[in-house]
């Protein structure tokens, strides 16, 4: 675990430093720019899906879905990050407790 943590930390720093150090034309290709722009979208969407609807190798709909539904409503209402996250947890905990 420690090896993966430290590797990822060093790598993330290197990515930041590279941005400040490389000449701007390195990533000037439009396809590269678009892919780099889409990667966070795709990864974050996949992370939402996997976190909410999977348990190990199984797909599962449980209290987490209620938490996500709360998050969607809160985000539509422009609630701050902390309200979204804590509210989602509270809703899921409530559904489990019922």
């Amino acid at each position, binding site marked *: *675990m420690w090896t*993966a*943590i*430290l*590797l*990822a930390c060093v*790598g*993330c*720093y290197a*990515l*930041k430093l*590279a*941005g*400040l*150090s*490389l000449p*701007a034309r390195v*990533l000037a290709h*439009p*396809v*590269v720019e678009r*892919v*780099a722009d*889409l*990667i*966070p*979208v*795709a*990864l*974050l*969407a*996949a*992370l*939402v*899906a*996997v976190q909410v*609807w*999977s348990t*190990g*190798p*199984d*797909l599962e709909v449980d*209290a*987490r879905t*209620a*938490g996500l539904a709360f*998050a969607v409503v809160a*985000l539509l209402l422009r609630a*701050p*990050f*902390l309200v*979204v*996250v804590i*509210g*989602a*947890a509270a*809703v*899921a*905990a409530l559904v*489990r407790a019922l």
Partner: protein
Amino acid sequence: MTDERSGIVRDGLAVGLATGLYGVSFGAIGVASGLSVLQTCVLSLLMFTGASQFAFVGVVAAGGAPVSGAATALLLGTRNTLYGLRMAPLLGWRGWRRAAAAHVLIDESTAMSVNRGTRAEARLGFASTGLSVFVLWNLATAIGAVGGQILGDPRTYGLDAAVGAAFLALLWPRLDVRSNQVVGLVAAAVALVLVPLTAAGWPVLAAGGVALLAGVLTRGTTDPTEVPGPGDVAGGHH
């Protein structure tokens, strides 16, 4: 200090406070994912880029190999490279200043300095936001991690649901473009299909392939790379 400059610093501190606070949720989720308090705090100190940190602990929590958590974190970290390319000519720092600036090169510090009129203001916005987020994010992580450990089973408090909500909140500002909504939906579907078929960690990495494919296939459409503006940041002026 002029009004203009103290205003920039005040905005930076406000963003630092708002962003830093949700370090509490990262700390709690980190220990809930099976990391130690120290490992969780090291991620905030050394990785210091929220989405990558959440991704790392998210993949580990789902049972993925730490190395696939690291790969996902790195893929998400590539957007900081783009911010850096944009910020380098604005900041104009060299040597140790550039090395230090790189560590606090994140969504928030970029957003709070990219639209400034002069180099001095850009530097001030970048440094005040970057430093205040760094200090508060790390303090909050430690509080959340220790608190999370005391609380015990994270499922009782719905902390497992908080992870999905955190990712959705990070994704939300990027969903204002139709093409991004489509990519997000396809990526989520691909990941879910792969969950029963592959080892944990791979479904999310495969979603990165969706981004690659979509970027190549949409060649020719004009969609300039977006850098976050002040309105995209918690606590920023709307």
